[in-house]
């Protein structure tokens, strides 16, 4: 409590002055453009198209380039990937008969996409996966058994080459012990620290 008349008057003056200044700040905010983005209908682009390339949305598997190595299944820390890749008795080829990802269990950590040799399993910018049934949360990527992909030195099949290129571009984003990191140009216009 105020011990003297001066402190009493100072309390009143400080309350008035700080309230005045605070009101000036909020009044200035009233005149500014709000930073709300009216999703999803009043936006120039779809949100999914504005997300960065590294965005970790719902997983997607390109079966054309999946080699059946099961590295993603082993790397997943929450066991949400189930793959069946038996060897076909007649053709001695590896077949992919089942590739299920439970996107409700998935924690979108990205650990499965790192060890993939071709970038078949990757995150997409899609994030709207809400649905009404639990069963639809399990994405089954194999419709009918397909042969696993055999990586070649140079891919010539025109159906597969662009998919492989995108997969390798996805993998290139990850840092590797051999690749040198890029230099960052110092910004000339930065203010003093």
């Amino acid at each position, binding site marked *: 409590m105020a011990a003297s008349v001066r402190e009493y008057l100072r309390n009143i003056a400080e309350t008035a002055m700080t309230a005045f*200044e605070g009101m000036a700040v909020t009044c200035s905010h009233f005149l500014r453009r709000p930073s709300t983005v009216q999703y999803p209908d009043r936006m120039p682009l779809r949100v999914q198209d504005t997300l960065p390339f590294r965005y970790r949305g719902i997983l997607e598997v390109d079966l054309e380039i999946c080699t059946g190595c099961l590295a993603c299944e082993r*790397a997943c*820390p929450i066991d949400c990937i189930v793959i069946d890749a038996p060897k076909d008795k007649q053709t001695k080829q590896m077949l992919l008969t089942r590739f299920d990802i439970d996107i409700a269990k998935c924690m979108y*950590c990205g650990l499965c996409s790192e060890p993939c040799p071709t970038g078949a399993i990757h995150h997409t910018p899609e994030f709207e996966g809400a649905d009404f049934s639990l069963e639809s949360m399990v994405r089954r990527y194999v419709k009918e058994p397909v042969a696993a992909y055999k990586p070649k030195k140079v891919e010539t099949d025109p159906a597969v080459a662009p998919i492989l290129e995108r997969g390798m571009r996805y993998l290139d984003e990850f*840092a590797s*012990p051999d690749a*040198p990191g890029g230099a*960052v140009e110092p910004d000339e216009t*930065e203010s003093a620290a």
Partner: protein
Amino acid sequence: MSLAGYEVAVEQVGPHGLETEEMTLNMGPQHPSTHGVLRFVVKADGEVMRQAIPDVGYLHRSIEKIAEKVGYHGFMPYTDRVDYVAAMFCNQGWASVAEKLGDITVPKRGEYCRVIAAELNRIASHLLSVGTMVLDIGAITPFFHAFREREKLNDLLEELCGSRLTYNYMRIGGVAWDLPPGYAEKVLAFLDRFEPMLAEYDDLISANKIYVERCAGVAIIGREDAFAYNLVGPNLRAAGVRYDVRRDEPYSVYPELEFDVPVGPGEHGVVGDSYARYAVRIREMTQSARILRQCFRQMPDGPVIAKVPRKFRPPAGDAQVRVESARGDMGWYAVSDGTEFPYRCKVRTGSFAAMAIIDKVSAGLMLADLVTVIASLDIVAPEVDR
């Protein structure tokens, strides 16, 4: 929860011959201003509290036990959830302890990437902390301004690692992604817009007389109490102790960076009160901005991750590492038995100790002050319970 041992004798006849009774209130797990699921059993005499007994465990998810099941690499996304508000520090702690066990050196550029991510996350975490503190005290606007800035930070971190809250950015041996092209310009532009915003924040709320009266002098925690209850981070620094793990037990590239360690008191109030804890956090944000600018100037080229085998089997033994998280000194302890699954992982967080001191500090405070104390100690429930 049993209240055995906590009973306080009920006064039947008060000082003026009136019969009085103590009121036992439950500031339950669901409450607008306990930060997460925390519960306090409050014994109050009208508005004045006698005791506020904390009850923890509502957010326990056995994260430390899960480490023993998923292995060293697979545990990294789980560490995000130990403190999801400041997840980069948890990543850094786990990566550092695994590197210490396996004797791995992180390349220099990788360390710089870690520091950049960590300091960005520190600013984001402090924005959340001061924003929710002023919201609990009743000012609804600065909360939104703080979160507006935090959204921009979330966008920056999303560009860096793909996720806005649970980053999983660091790996054992370095970081998973290098800085994307043009990142330095974006972060520096953000910092240029951020520092005037902090000044505006001060004009709006930090100097406000009502806010100062609510916080200054409330729940003073001095040096001895802070040491006795193991408080760390901004809570300890507000008590006047200039201790920061980045300065006193340096790790990563912090020895090469110049920054101050702000201590209490703030512009108003005394050492160790709620206002000091608030002011320390505001000033730490400025220091983080300073560190970020230096990092971008000093970053060398090179790889950002070291070579670590897929089946990471560190030799048997144990290691302990401390990182300066947004909430203070976070200790990570891991025991390895030679296999690719750790034998034990233990996390020591700052919020757990802060919960304990609320019991001591709340005697004689008013109900409204309890909210101030919880907010100023920056307690987040995931850190308390893991």
